[in-house]
């Protein structure tokens, strides 16, 4: 806006900008009657349509209601977010209006002919095409993804739980209370740190095992001289092909202490038929990690097999000429190439297991229960959030923990994506 220098003496751009404080007037001043009228009508209808919402929306968002008989705090919260979104939209149009008035004013200052209505229409259709195409997707995204995220963020700063629950009671803003309580009240602190510790052990244990097994089997199957290679590979992919919720529930049956086949048939042979798989947290954890390894290795196996088949044979032949052993070839050729090609996917495996609700919940419901904490013995953060929400109605706390969890995931993911190519290439982005 600042550059003026040797521009002509007329100041139509500034007048147009000032008049546009009331949308449309600047355009009238620029003699763009149709456009001005559209802006004016748009502004008027915006205020008519949303005046109630704008008034009560902000009031509700700030107070969350004053009388439980009339005000439903959560409804007010939702309306509040809606108001904020609509306000942002309105401000966007307003800025567009100011910008347009200024630009046309500047054209007039420079004695250029402003675009005719016809040209403007063509500009709108041409330049507006991408916006038009994206609108449906974006609207859906705003309502089912962004809206819930905003809601959770706000909820983390309220005392919404069983005792502060509409319609009987009001919900109040409590600032950072939830976060402070998670770290200060002993039972919450104990639970949080033991759940976090197990989440981390689980993520690294299960993922590393499945990645390791996947790579190992892929290399194994890539040897020359293995018969029925195709059939065996297909069998190795099978655990990936079965929907995981089916496999996990089947495993829950297999590990069952009264009729499960693991204790009854397999371990009974070794005289170990009474291992408490589902009632002792340590055994449940071992079972969970084994199950996830079973579920997860085929994906890595398939991926690494693809990479291995693309490694040129000459590399190995050259190594053999130099007298390299099997281990040396693996360490110097195979592993670096495989890791280089699959590193990003490996990292997504870690973030996937970090949030792997299905296996934890479907196998044993996060249980067994353990004393001195309000989460089950094998609950990871996401399944703890689930039970806080669905069974103990601790919405505020659950939202606070969700924020902590999201922060961890986003940090890891951003760190990963910063390293990928597309992030650095200007045109890709």
């Amino acid at each position, binding site marked *: 806006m600042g550059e003026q220098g040797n521009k002509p003496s007329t100041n139509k751009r500034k007048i147009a900008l000032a008049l546009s404080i009331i949308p449309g007037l600047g355009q009238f001043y620029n003699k763009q009657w149709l456009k001005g009228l559209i802006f004016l009508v748009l502004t008027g209808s915006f205020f008519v349509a949303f005046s109630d919402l704008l008034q009560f929306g902000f009031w509700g968002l700030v107070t969350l209601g004053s009388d439980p008989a009339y005000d439903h705090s959560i*409804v007010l919260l*939702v309306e509040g977010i809606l108001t904020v979104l609509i306000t942002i939209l309105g401000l966007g149009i307003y800025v567009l209006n100011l910008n347009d008035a200024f630009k046309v004013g500047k054209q007039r200052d420079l004695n250029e002919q402003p675009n005719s209505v016809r040209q403007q229409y063509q500009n709108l259709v041409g330049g507006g*095409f*991408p*916006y038009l*195409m*994206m609108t*449906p*997707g*974006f609207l*859906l*995204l705003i309502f*089912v*993804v*962004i809206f*819930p*995220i905003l*809601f*959770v963020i706000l909820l983390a700063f309220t005392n919404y739980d069983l005792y502060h629950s509409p319609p009987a009671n009001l919900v109040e803003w409590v600032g950072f209370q939830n976060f402070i309580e998670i770290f200060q009240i002993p039972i919450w602190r104990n639970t949080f740190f033991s759940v976090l510790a197990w989440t981390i052990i689980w993520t690294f244990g299960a993922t590393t095992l499945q990645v390791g097994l996947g790579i190992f089997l892929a290399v194994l*199957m890539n*040897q020359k001289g*293995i018969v029925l290679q195709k059939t065996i590979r*297909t*069998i*190795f*992919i*099978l655990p990936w*092909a*079965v*929907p995981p*919720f*089916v496999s996990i*529930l*089947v495993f*829950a*049956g*297999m590990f*069952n202490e009264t*009729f499960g086949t693991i204790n009854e*048939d397999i371990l009974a042979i070794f005289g170990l038929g009474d291992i408490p798989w589902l009632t002792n947290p340590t055994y449940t954890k071992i079972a969970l990690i084994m199950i996830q390894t*079973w579920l997860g290795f085929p994906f890595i196996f398939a*991926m690494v097999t693809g990479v291995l088949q693309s490694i040129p044979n000459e590399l190995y032949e050259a190594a053999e000429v130099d007298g390299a052993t*099997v281990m040396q070839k693996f360490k110097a050729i195979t592993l670096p190439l495989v890791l280089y090609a*699959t590193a*990003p*996917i490996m990292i*997504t495996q870690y*973030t996937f297991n970090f949030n792997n609700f299905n296996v934890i919940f*479907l196998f044993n419901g996060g249980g067994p229960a353990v004393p001195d904490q309000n989460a089950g013995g094998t609950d990871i953060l996401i399944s703890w959030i689930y039970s806080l*929400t*669905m069974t103990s109605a601790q*919405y505020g706390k659950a939202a606070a923990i969700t924020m902590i969890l999201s922060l961890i*995931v*986003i940090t890891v993911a*951003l760190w990963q994506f910063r390293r*990928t*190519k*597309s992030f650095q290439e200007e045109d*890709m*982005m």
Partner: protein
Amino acid sequence: MRSNKQNIVQLTLSYIVIIAMITIILYPILWIIGSSLNPGNSLSGSSIIPSDATFEHYQELFDLEKSNYLLWYWNTIKICLLTMAISVALVCMTAYSFSRFRFYGRKNGLMTFLILQMIPNFAALIAIYALANLTNLLDTHLALILVYTGGAIPMNTYLMKGYLDTIPKELDESARIDGAGNFRVFWQIVLPLAKPMIAVVSLFTFITPFTDFILARILLRTEEKFTLAVGLYELIADQFGNEFTLFAAGSVLIALPISILFLSLQKYFVSGLTAGGTKG
């Protein structure tokens, strides 16, 4: 001579590992098939190869009077197909805009997608539950379809955009010279060329709702509206072990068609996931 001997040892060890792995993989599958053929409700006294195998549990599942299983199957297929259709349409439109146009807000839009695809959409489960409750969408399939579709957009748009970027822009331009408009270029030039990636996105957006448990569990309340994942869970969670054979039959009927579908389309999965991981 020595290397020959070494080779034999290595191969023998490999075969031992392979046989062990095949056993570990196939045992649960055979066990559940065996269980589904066992007469009676519980498994006590049963064997993996029942001597008096029966299909009565399968018959019970197909009997609409006795079980909601077919209903769940129908619900799941319906939800998955609708999610797939809507997602593919929205993803193609959004990805085309991101790939072919340079417009104000494009970079911020892409950044938003990038960050959104990192957070699993069920992380906001409290909000989804509360919002569905407020809008009276709790216990409707519409809510599930909307949430699945919204959740599918960011990641799949990235996949699709990455693919569209590889289609030469000269093709668009020559079509434009021949007088084709924006929409026509999209519909007649770009989309036909993007078929392989459309297949991948369709597959992903079909299978994700199929295997989802948590969102369906939160949003669906009545038994007639359950999806397979929730229904199957309820089947054994209520009275674990007492209806295990019925559950086993239900599992087999899900695993079989999905595995066949998966194995025949496996190359699409691998190519899609590789592209998603490396292109970001």
